[in-house]
């Protein structure tokens, strides 16, 4: 089992995505699980933007209806012009505060109007601030009335698993194991709100959830997991060969909240909002974390690990 991770150290003011670009722009690589840091000053790892690849976004903790969320929506639309991702997975806290009909417009439909108009589909998972009954039935979240579900990506050998981490009952775990076991896709990508691993001073890791779900992720060959809840961006060092992303600053932000002493962090960004763009082509997942100003704050490529 090997994983290759290449990390881009972002120049904060660097323009991101000089696309289209030739494939194979990995700047550095190393055997798993160590991450090989790219020398300071080098360009971030570009998303190859290959034809036929799966391109998607990851967004969390965003539905505030406030200026930073709208800025992020604009930044995502700008990114989409150059990197046409076809779907966005959300890691919860899709709406904050009141969640009446008007709120779905001001906290979701308007900030992402350009993306929705371009046909980008959002596949939601729910966080602790989400009104579950309304959101799971809201057509633009594509949950089909379910609190947890899986779907095959429209391209590549990928299946996503949207999980409910606020009410992880034994039935969900049984369902998850059956789904993971029955999935023929090489990439099995779970996403949900509460992070198994996080360096957040405010929330941090969720050990009670790790006990229940992590053994399944390890057993069934999961390579990457996306979560939110802590309001910053973090990519962990591989934990049992799995890379965990915290993408909880899609609208919210808790400045300076990453505890650098946890030893978990491979790359963290907690000074501005961020979202993630990713591209899967066969056994590689390329990623760029983009800040509210459009800077690439983290980048790299993760090679899929094989199921044990």
């Amino acid at each position, binding site marked *: 089992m090997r994983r290759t991770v290449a990390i881009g150290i972002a120049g904060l003011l660097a323009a991101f995505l000089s696309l289209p670009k030739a494939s194979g722009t990995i700047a550095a690589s190393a055997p798993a699980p160590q991450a090989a840091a790219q020398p300071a000053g080098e360009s971030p790892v570009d998303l190859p933007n290959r034809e036929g690849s799966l391109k998607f976004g990851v967004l969390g903790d965003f539905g505030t209806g406030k200026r930073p969320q709208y800025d992020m929506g604009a930044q995502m639309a700008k990114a989409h012009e150059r990197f046409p991702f076809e779907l966005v997975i959300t890691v919860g806290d899709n709406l904050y*505060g*009141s*969640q*009446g*009909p008007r*709120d*779905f417009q001001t906290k979701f439909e308007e900030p992402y109007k350009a993306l929705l108009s371009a046909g980008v589909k959002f596949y939601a998972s729910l966080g*602790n*601030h989400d*009104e*579950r*009954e*309304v959101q799971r*039935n*809201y*057509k633009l979240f594509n949950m089909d009335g379910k609190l947890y579900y899986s779907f095959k990506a429209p391209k590549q050998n990928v299946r996503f698993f949207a999980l409910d*981490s*606020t*009410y*992880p*009952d*034994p*039935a969900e*775990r049984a369902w998850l194991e059956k789904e993971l076991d029955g999935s023929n896709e090489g990439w099995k990508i779970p996403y949900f709100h*509460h992070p198994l691993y996080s360096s957040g001073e405010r*929330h941090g890791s*969720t*050990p*009670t*959830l790790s*006990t*229940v779900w992590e053994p399944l992720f390890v057993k069934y060959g999961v390579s990457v997991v996306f979560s939110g809840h802590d309001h910053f961006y973090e990519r962990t060092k591989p934990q049992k060969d799995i890379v965990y992303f915290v993408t909880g600053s899609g609208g919210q932000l808790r400045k300076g909240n990453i505890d650098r002493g946890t030893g978990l962090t491979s790359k963290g960004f907690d000074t501005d909002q961020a979202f993630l763009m990713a591209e899967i082509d066969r056994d590689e997942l390329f990623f760029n974390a983009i800040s509210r100003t459009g800077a690439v704050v983290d980048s790299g490529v993760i090679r899929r690990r094989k199921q044990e």
Partner: protein
Amino acid sequence: MAGTLFALAVNILLLAPTIGTPQGAAPAGGQKVNADARVMADFEARVKAYSDLHRKLEATLPNLPKETTPTQISEHQVALAQLIAHARSGAQFGDIFTKETRALFRRYLARVFVGPEGAKLKAVIMDENPGKLQLHVNARYPESVPVSTVPTQVLQTLPKLPEDLEYRFIGDRLVLHDIHADTIVDVIENAFPK
């Protein structure tokens, strides 16, 4: 109907004394098992009676269309909540979580929250927990506040609920929440061990 269900549950109880014992809650002593099982069967019968009422009333409402808007969902929720409130106009706290059930649940939860692992569970539940809020039977679940996480370890300990109901914590209170109607059905105060 609730009486019939209760009688049925008691009959089943007599045939199978451990029915209703939740996963992870180790029974202690034959007599106690019987007593606990009786309380659990009573709880399950009361939950079933509530759930049957819920479904009967919900069936009188128009089905939500596949392409549902937030307005339609919200209207459906309010309509269902009103029907349930009308049908249960005399409902009080303790109707489902009876005195005996409350004592039993507190005992089960005390086992879950013991030691360092229990402290972790409690910390997860109290993370962005809505805290002290006024709660009323049949009233809407508090709006614009986060929901507590209910860890698997707790859910394994408590009896399984029908899909239209769930457990939540508000402060240190265990709440029975009607998901579709988004209302409070019953509450156990001081659910955490002291």
